[in-house]
């Protein structure tokens, strides 16, 4: 059975580097025809920001990867595992991914939380009407590479090749 992977990119496309998450998903979608992406059940979702109802998108996934612009992560991007956390994001209209995982756990106490990761891409300007900054545009390519590499690893782990030296799935 193919691994079920949800990639959730969020941000406002009209606010400069906040568009990084949705833009990365556009690029990933454009590569759907690649053989290695055929080896998984990939769903790409985008929204302006994470909200409580997005916890209802997570059940049944083998893995969830969130993609967002970040104001302080080391450039070009970081990929880190996530754990549920009732963090400070409740104080705004938007949730952090960790808080969303906590919501998932609270509304689905009997379900196992899938492994979740956050791909943070360094952004620099976020004003309404700003275009993507040149630095962020460069980070986008690096982030796509890292995301693809991560997804390939999941494919290999789910269905190891007969030849262990052959990783080109």
């Amino acid at each position, binding site marked *: 059975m193919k691994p079920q992977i949800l990639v959730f990119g*969020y*941000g*406002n*496309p*009209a*606010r400069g*580097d*906040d568009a990084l998450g949705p833009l990365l998903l556009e690029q990933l979608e454009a590569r759907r025809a690649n053989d290695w992406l055929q080896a998984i059940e990939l769903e790409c*979702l*985008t*929204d*302006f*920001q*994470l*909200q*409580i*109802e997005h*916890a*209802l998108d997570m059940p049944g996934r083998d893995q969830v990867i969130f993609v*967002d*612009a*970040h*104001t*302080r*992560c080391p450039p070009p991007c970081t990929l880190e595992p996530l754990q549920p956390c*009732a963090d*400070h*994001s*409740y*104080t*705004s*209209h*938007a949730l*952090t991914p960790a*808080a969303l995982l*906590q*919501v998932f756990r*609270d*509304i689905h106490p009997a379900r196992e939380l899938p492994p979740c990761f956050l791909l*943070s891409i360094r*952004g620099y300007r*976020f*004003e*309404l*009407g700003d275009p993507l900054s040149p630095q962020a545009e460069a980070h986008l390519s690096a982030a796509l590479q890292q995301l693809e590499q991560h997804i390939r690893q999941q494919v290999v782990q789910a269905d190891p090749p007969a030849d262990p030296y052959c990783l080109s799935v």
Partner: protein
Amino acid sequence: MYTHLETAESPETLRRVVIDPVTRVEGHGKVTLLLDEENHVRQARLHIVEFRGFERFIQGRPYWELPVLVQRLCGICPVSHHLAAAKAIDQLVGVDQLTPTADKLRRLLHFGQMLQSHALHFFHLSSPDLLFGFASEAARRNIVAVLEAYPETGLKGVRLRKFGQEVIRMICGKRVHGTGAIAGGMNKALSREERDYLLQDVDQIIAWSGDAVSLARDLYLSDREQHDRFAYIRSSFMGLIRPDGALEFYHGGLRAKDERGQIIFDHLDYRQYTDYLHEQVKPWSYMKFPYIVSLGPERGWYRVGPLARINNCEFIPTPLAETARQAFAGYGAGNPVHGSLAFHWARMIEVLHAAEAIRELLLDADIMGTDLVTRGEKRYEGIGVIEAPRGTLFHHYCVNDEDIVTRANLIVSTTSNNTAMNESIRQVAATYLDGQTVTEGLLNHLEVAIRAYDPCLSCATHALGQMPLELELLDAEERVISRIQRGVTA
């Protein structure tokens, strides 16, 4: 009125407390308090810092882009901007009357937006204060704690919101950035499968919405004395109204009532709004202060949103919500209800109305029609007004011969509530904080007052790494004496 707390004399001698940004509102808000040596409040102001650039964002774009473009103004109510823009550009293509199917699809879309936005606000942002107390431990005042302590209530909130989002997705074809409404109509018909998908859950949604009204009412009445007087201000109210006096969210005339419930103006063509509403500028705020011209800037400020709409209407055209409205009106004993916390009660009555109206529209014979677009003669000016979840929303555009927007003016509901929110925090500051040692719990009282209005400060950016709340205590020279973050003292 608490205008005596708007501007202090000799502010340089006073101690300043800043809440920056205000939490659980969309975007960035800042409250500043000036206190004297005995902790008496001398000045209280709410500053909105994200209201620049809307018009600039829109000017220079072709009008047909606007229904999609303006959704990006706000991460919480994109559909409201989408529909206000669509109503304005209908006029630019010479259309004053949509086909029955297009009109009903837009209304259905709008009810979906109203449902999801109100559910988010009540269950996620405000119920923690009401369930656990305004001064309860900060770590408990959140949706996660609600889900832990009241799992059924929390889950209903999540699912109500999800249903509203699904209504939007069925009509627009996708969750965000959809193109449901276009100039003169709608872009896509609703299929039988899409309609049936929504119909299968709608009765459950109506039942949960009824539970939400009961919860909001019971929470309000559980401490009637405090909730009545908390952030209590008396104001005029304004919003759209149907010709027969019914509650109306999508299209109608403007009605304003004064604080005693007497009509100021009624069934006004909203395209004449500039004759009746003006905006005052104050040097300490980026956000303007609208007022009713006939009453002047001092007395002409008003409130919009759920409390205004429920106070202003004569009936609600769906049975369960009308019963709930009658109970609300009975509480006011024939007078408008003025307590700011009553916004939550009114908001849940609107959720119930939205759920009932969604069911009616899904069963309407026109809803799956395919006659979607009307055309007319080009015009150069269009004004679209709707009742967004937070209140009356104005989009006003002028275009040139090339169909490029040359002028845009937006009045969002949070702007209309600007004076009221400032009055509310001044009332709270004067009642609860005056002479007290400032604590996080007391400062949260100010935020509870602001959150009653569900201000949408229209900052859809949410980049990680930003601290949502900082409290800074500064001396008269504005040097930082101490800084408090949620759960951290530095």
